[in-house]
């Protein structure tokens, strides 16, 4: 089957989730990917939404994090203070699944303002939501974001959610217990932080994407892994389930 680059991105993100993991899911692409994973290789994936639904098993894709289907299918529904204090904060969540308006070479995320300054922004974005603490407290973070020169910047205009700051050791200094962004999945490929420098490195390209495009759509001098991989295309089953979910 033919597929779009967004479909490839979503499938790649879904594949990054191991069965049985507990996943704190943002709305949009992360939610689509997590639900795809649950319908394919990871039936026991536990979806936690910031609206307070734990173990939701939606039979259709929720349009917002507060859809009734999440409450109806959850193992437990708790209040919003509890979901952050009892469930996210202590580090019980395996994977935090985030989107980004801007992402920089050290995995920091901006969803607040672009351009100008904070009081007089060029573009005012929705803001933080649950992301700062998801990025801080989950055992690891997966970012799903379309790779464009506007989004992939040298340094984010505003740090809404902390990745690796400006390099190694900063998370540890700040006392953050989660490991931070382990994986960035885009419509072009996959980036991972270099274990030494913490800079995001391109480690794989999706089928049919060339390296020049990835470099071109990155706002910094993109480092590429020596053993640059090549992802598998979506299977027919993955595409069928994804399209069933999103129609």
């Amino acid at each position: 089957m033919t597929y779009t680059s967004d479909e490839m991105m979503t499938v790649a993100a879904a594949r990054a989730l191991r069965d049985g993991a507990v996943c704190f899911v943002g709305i949009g692409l992360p939610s689509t990917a997590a639900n795809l994973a649950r319908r394919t290789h990871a039936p026991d994936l536990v979806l936690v939404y910031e609206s307070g639904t734990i173990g939701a098993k939606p039979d259709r894709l929720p349009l917002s994090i507060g859809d009734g289907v999440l409450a109806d299918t959850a193992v437990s529904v708790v209040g919003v203070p509890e979901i952050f204090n009892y469930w996210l904060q202590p580090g019980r969540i395996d994977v935090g699944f985030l989107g980004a308006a801007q992402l920089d070479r050290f995995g920091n995320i901006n969803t607040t303002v672009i351009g100008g300054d904070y009081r007089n922004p060029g573009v005012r974005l929705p803001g933080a939501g649950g992301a700062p603490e998801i990025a801080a407290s989950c055992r690891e973070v997966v970012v799903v974001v379309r790779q464009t020169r506007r989004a992939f910047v040298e340094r984010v205009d505003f740090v809404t959610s902390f990745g690796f700051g400006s390099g190694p050791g900063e998370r540890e200094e700040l006392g953050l217990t989660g490991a931070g962004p382990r994986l960035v999945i885009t419509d072009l490929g996959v980036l991972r932080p270099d274990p030494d420098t913490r800079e995001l490195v391109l480690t794989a390209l999706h089928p049919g994407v060339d390296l020049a495009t990835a470099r071109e759509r990155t706002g910094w001098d993109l480092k590429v892994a020596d053993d640059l991989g090549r992802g598998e295309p979506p299977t027919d089953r993955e595409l069928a389930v994804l399209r069933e979910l999103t129609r």
Partner: protein
Amino acid sequence: MATIAPLAEAVAQVVRDGDTVAFEGFTHLIPFAAGHEVIRQGRRGLTLVRMTPDVLYDQLIGAGCARKLVFSWGGNPGVGSLHRFRDAVQHGWPRPLELEEHSHAGMANRYVAAASGLPFAVLRGYTGTDLPAQTANIASVTCPFTGEVLTAVAALELDAAVVHAQRADRHGNVQLWGITGVQKEAVLAATRSLVTVEEVVDELEPRPGAVVLPSWVVDYVAEVPGGAHPSYAHDYSVRDNDFYVAWDAISRDRDEFAQWLESIA
């Protein structure tokens, strides 16, 4: 004991010019009808508080009711941006909008502190982000046992809280279920409170997952069936996603918005 009253009277009693007021609801049970009544009554100078200001706050901001917004995520869920909010922030129209911006965890804990009668709450939050530099009411606090430095947020004390619920009984005890958000905390954090409900019933039959607010912490209850539309009331209505999508076009243009305002007058 809560007074059961018509919406207009209840809003007039509970929401006053210059108030710090939260119309809470986490996608679910958003008190749209009460918010529209606030617009009709021409309230001004409000500090609007909410974790997830969405279309209702876009409307209140566009109508000129607000001077400040205290929030953690402002968008049209599943659709995109709030254009009246953006217009106020970026161009000061119809009036400038001061912002106080938090994370969800920070806002939720600010409500908890106020509901608990404490001046602040402790959390692991905002670490490494640019938010504390721009936002008052975030500070640090040292654990007296371990010496660890944590984040403190100031209690979010409200003059008024407005929420929507499925039911109340004739004594004014309120019952809501489904996604319950921070509604209980908002009511307990407020000096005055109003709950609009789908229906007033003789008896609140127990429901799984229900939060019940006893009558003696609620000031006013108003029966407003459909009062959460275009948001929804679990087991009573479904979310009108088409309206949220349509709002994008209405709110992009000041004239279109003005027409919408007239439609609710």
